[in-house]
């Protein structure tokens, strides 16, 4: 019997992680997701991850991986993962590792006026952007929140015309130009391969 491996992931990555695990035949890897809306309070991510790691170990997982990047924790998640002895995904956030961290970082300030959507965010735009930012009840906030942005970049993990349509619609609602960039799963695939 192969050893048990558990990946603890942000809920925003569930679909993509399952797709990679399936494609790579990593059937022994279990996936446990934390709520994606933790991103609204990133300071709570390290504690939530620690609890999930403890739960995974208690459940008999021999190896545990954390499918989060820094995600606005200012290095606290990396420090916590190091203390727990678990590996996480390098990079500032999922936009970076889908794009490829090196490539993303090389773009630097040239993209500071870009607002990114992954496939997940294109699909869940209302639940994770529009409503949490209060734009459903106070549309006048749009320019306070997005006035410095110019372009919505859809980092597309898959070829999906419906997601393309949703991303274009999101850009129009935010008053931004639309750009589509096909990334595939980027660094996520290599990270999950280490769980093999």
């Amino acid at each position, binding site marked *: 019997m192969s050893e048990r491996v558990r990946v603890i992931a942000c809920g925003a990555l569930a679909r993509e992680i399952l797709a990679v695990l399936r494609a790579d035949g990593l059937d022994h890897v279990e996936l446990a997701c934390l709520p994606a809306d933790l991103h609204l309070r*990133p300071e709570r991510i390290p504690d939530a991850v620690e609890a999930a790691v403890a739960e995974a170990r208690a459940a008999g997982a021999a190896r545990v991986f954390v499918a989060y990047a820094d995600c*606005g924790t*200012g*290095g606290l998640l990396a420090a916590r993962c190091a203390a727990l002895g678990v590996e996480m995904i390098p990079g500032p956030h999922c936009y970076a590792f889908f794009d490829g961290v090196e490539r993303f970082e090389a773009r630097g300030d040239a993209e*500071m006026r870009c607002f990114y959507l992954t496939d997940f965010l294109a699909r869940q735009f209302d639940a994770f952007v529009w409503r949490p*930012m*209060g734009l459903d009840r106070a549309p006048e*906030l749009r320019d*306070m*929140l997005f006035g410095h942005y110019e372009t919505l970049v859809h980092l597309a993990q898959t070829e999906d015309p419906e997601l393309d349509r949703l991303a274009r619609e999101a850009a129009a609602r935010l008053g931004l130009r639309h750009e589509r960039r096909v990334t595939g799963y980027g660094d996520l695939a290599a990270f999950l391969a280490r769980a093999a």
Partner: protein
Amino acid sequence: MADDGDDLVLAELDDDDLVQQMHDDLYDGLKAEVEEGVNILLERGWTPYDVLTRALVAGMTVVGRDFRDGILFVPEVLLAANSMKGGMAILRPLLAETDAPKMGKMVIGTVKGDIHDIGKNLVSMMMEGAGFEVVDLGINNAVESYLDALEREEAEILGMSALLTTTMPYMKVVIDAMVERGVRDRHIVLVGGAPLNEEFGRAIGADAYCRDAAVAVETAKALVAARKHNQMAAVG
């Protein structure tokens, strides 16, 4: 909180009830009502400084506390801030004419590569509300922008903000440049932004990390007071 559609007439409330109602209206982001309250208090002979501190700043402090505690989220804080901004626009010219206490001067801006300014704008407003003169440099500021402004404005305090893990290290670039030019000790450096923490503030050589606007105000007051005390001790 006030219900929508009730027939409350602000002008009929006594001072205490009106101030309480203004706190509620700020909390609910009702800009027109806050502006009306400011005008009523001024007509009743309140000093602009009292209106600012007792009605607006005190109300906004509650908003900040509830944001910190997870009761309010960004949109509510933005609406509240926008309401306070409306009140400030009425008070600002009046404050300039009066002898409201002057606490010091601050240059503030978001760092290079970062366009996020919600938190910075909130700090600017609360600092102004606390009697500080604030020079807001806006977003995407390089080292020169900060250093030129500090010298030009003769500001005691530098505030730097960043929202991104990728841009927050630039704060150290600015502080290192201040050290290199021998001006670091002339200024109090406060840093803030969602991904920052106290450890980061210490590591880059800032005087303090401020987790929210209210903490920024309190920290600035304390550090300015300590600096004055030390200067007086040195003279004495």
